[in-house]
């Protein structure tokens, strides 16, 4: 590529990159003001609002595309650096089994309901991943892995955000008092069933006990780490659902993306868990928040709320909510009887 063409692309990209940075930084700063505010969720919401205002002009498109291409992998690397497998090694195996059972339950319920509601497969898979593992971050990671269209991503995001808000308040104000579970049980419950790490912190934070918040975050990180093996499962399901229509190039692209994401995330997680690099995890955290936030903001910016199929949005959100209801019922009645 000639130097002048490279300069042109950079100039075209600057507005979108700058806006993504401002949105992400704003979300990050607001999240520091109150634990009710989740920086990543805010970044996506701000991005969606910008997409409404600017209707995806080419100036936003180029920058948004570059942010997604570069910052999702970089953000994932930095996310991996936050992992500490040494901490997770001592975790009670029953917690891990509960996490896996809940993940599988989310998938089964959402896939069955969405088949009934005739929701597109890619929307369903993104909603499953977001509900079962780590909310909007999972959707950001999984979207390229399933070659999702913008409306698939936006429909799934709406479901995750709506169910997230409903579930956190129902958990604290209804489920916790009614179930009479101990604070320790509550910690594992919120970390296993709420979709977003920010919401887990919020729900645990309602107890006013920092140790509970800290413990809940550790469990949530274990759940988050499962995004990588889950991604390959989702890629397989997506391939089978597309059948022979999926070209060899598409299969190659999604597999390459999956391997890249897996290698970056787990590579950094292993490096930071088992070497002296872990001391840098905390200093890196603000940069990870802003960089991954930029990727999420640009996903929001590439959305188009006007083009959404409202029926799909409502039904998909409903199935995510029902799935959460089924998962908490399984959890309370079967996995962790009232303690």
């Amino acid at each position, binding site marked *: *590529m000639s130097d002048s063409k490279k300069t042109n692309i950079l100039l075209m990209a600057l507005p979108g990159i700058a806006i993504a940075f401002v949105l992400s930084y704003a979300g990050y700063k607001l999240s520091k003001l109150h634990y009710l505010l989740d920086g990543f969720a805010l970044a996506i919401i701000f991005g969606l609002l910008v997409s409404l205002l600017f209707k995806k002009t*080419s100036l936003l498109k180029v920058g948004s*595309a570059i942010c997604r291409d570069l910052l999702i992998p970089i953000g994932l690397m930095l996310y991996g650096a936050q992992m500490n497998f040494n901490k997770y090694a001592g975790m009670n195996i029953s917690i891990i089994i509960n996490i896996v059972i809940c993940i599988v339950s989310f998938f089964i319920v959402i896939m069955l309901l969405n088949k009934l509601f005739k929701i597109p497969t890619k929307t369903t898979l993104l909603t499953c991943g977001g509900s079962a593992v780590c909310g909007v971050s999972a959707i950001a990671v999984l979207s*390229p892995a399933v070659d999702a*269209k*913008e409306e698939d991503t936006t429909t799934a995001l709406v479901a995750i955000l709506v169910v997230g808000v409903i579930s956190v308040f129902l958990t604290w104000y209804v489920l916790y008092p009614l179930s009479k579970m101990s604070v320790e049980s509550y910690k594992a419950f919120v970390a296993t069933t709420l979709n977003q790490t920010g919401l887990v912190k919020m729900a645990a934070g309602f107890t006013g006990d920092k140790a509970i918040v800290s413990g809940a975050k550790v469990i949530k990180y274990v759940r988050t780490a499962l995004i990588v093996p889950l991604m390959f499962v989702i890629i397989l399901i997506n391939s089978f659902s597309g059948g022979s229509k999926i070209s060899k190039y*598409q299969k190659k*692209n999604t597999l390459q993306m999956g391997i890249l994401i897996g290698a970056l995330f787990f590579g950094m997680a292993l490096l930071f868990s088992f070497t002296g690099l872990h001391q840098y995890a905390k200093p890196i955290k603000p940069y990870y928040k802003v960089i991954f936030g930029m990727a999420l903001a640009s996903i929001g910016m590439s959305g188009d709320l006007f083009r959404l199929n409202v029926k799909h949005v409502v039904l998909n959100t409903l199935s995510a909510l029902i799935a959460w209801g089924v998962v908490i019922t399984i959890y309370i009645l079967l996995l962790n009887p009232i303690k």
Partner: protein
Amino acid sequence: MSTGRLKEIVEYVKSNFTLKNLAITNLELKTKLPVGEYDENTPDDPEKEKMLIQAAREILKKDKLEIE
């Protein structure tokens, strides 16, 4: 009605370009087609196929593509 050819061209471009979202955006800017919306069920269209192939040649800097 046959489908999927337009999507195949898009995926071919992506597979030969490191920044895949940028590749899609470039195709959209050059052709003014909603390339990001294409999927395996998008009906084939010879006119659009020609436009995509031409744009793909420019983006990938090749006179002839394997997919032609």
